[in-house]
């Protein structure tokens, strides 16, 4: 899976009926230090992510392992909004409005 930022949406009226009623987001990849990579995907949104949200998305046939994307020609799916993440025990990102995610030695 990859970390990405929802940077836009795609509207398509002429399309295969199998992808009707799916919301497609444009997601730009982020690296582990919260820097944008120059790579984008169009991903089916299974959890109602909002513009600007940092999300996790999966690609390949695994993207069809949800009730919303099953049996449809989908190869990328957003499945979670990220609260926070850390690298080498250092907090890199935290969603606004959330309490700090603390990582005590005892927890691991």
């Amino acid at each position, binding site marked *: *899976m990859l970390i990405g930022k929802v940077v836009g949406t795609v509207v398509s009226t002429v399309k295969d009926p199998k992808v009707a009623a799916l919301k497609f987001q444009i997601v730009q990849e982020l*690296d582990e230090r919260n820097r944008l990579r120059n790579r984008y995907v169009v991903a089916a949104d299974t959890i109602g992510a909002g513009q600007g949200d940092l999300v996790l998305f999966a690609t*390949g*046939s695994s993207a069809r392992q*949800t009730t919303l994307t099953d049996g449809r020609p989908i190869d990328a799916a957003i499945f979670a*909004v990220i609260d926070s993440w850390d*690298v080498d025990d250092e907090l890199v990102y935290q969603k606004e409005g959330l309490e700090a995610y603390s990582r005590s030695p005892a927890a691991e």
Partner: protein
Amino acid sequence: MFLARVIGRVVTTQQLPGMLGEKLLIVQPLDEQRAAAGDTLVACDAADSGLGDIVHVCDGREATLALHDSYVPIDATIVGHVEEFAHDGPAPRISAGDVEAPGAPRAGMPGASGASGASRAPAPRPPRAGRATQAESDAAREASRRRGAASEERDERELLP
């Protein structure tokens, strides 16, 4: 499938229900010199891994088969801890003491090096809060497994030429 080092962790609460309880770790793929090889990615953890561990990651659809609930959109899962990596070049072997980041000892970590007999499966997880009975959990897992298998069958029937 590839080797990687665990470098971080991702926390999510707004997510698909099947993701509840799954640990998400940031991993850096490695080459045979133990150097970074490729971009970092996020993997589910099926082997009770910690920061600094050198791990074996299974990618693609098969990543879902290592999880309790295989009906989740997961394309990378940690399926083992690397204790030894014998190499044909100048790089030294990765041995049990070579983990670079400090970490608290965990149940299930390997002892003597070179073990090739019966593996130790990751410690079983405690039941999650909210599960009424073991029978219900098993039934839910079996239903999910069937959904996953049916989904794969549908893929092969409908999406391949």
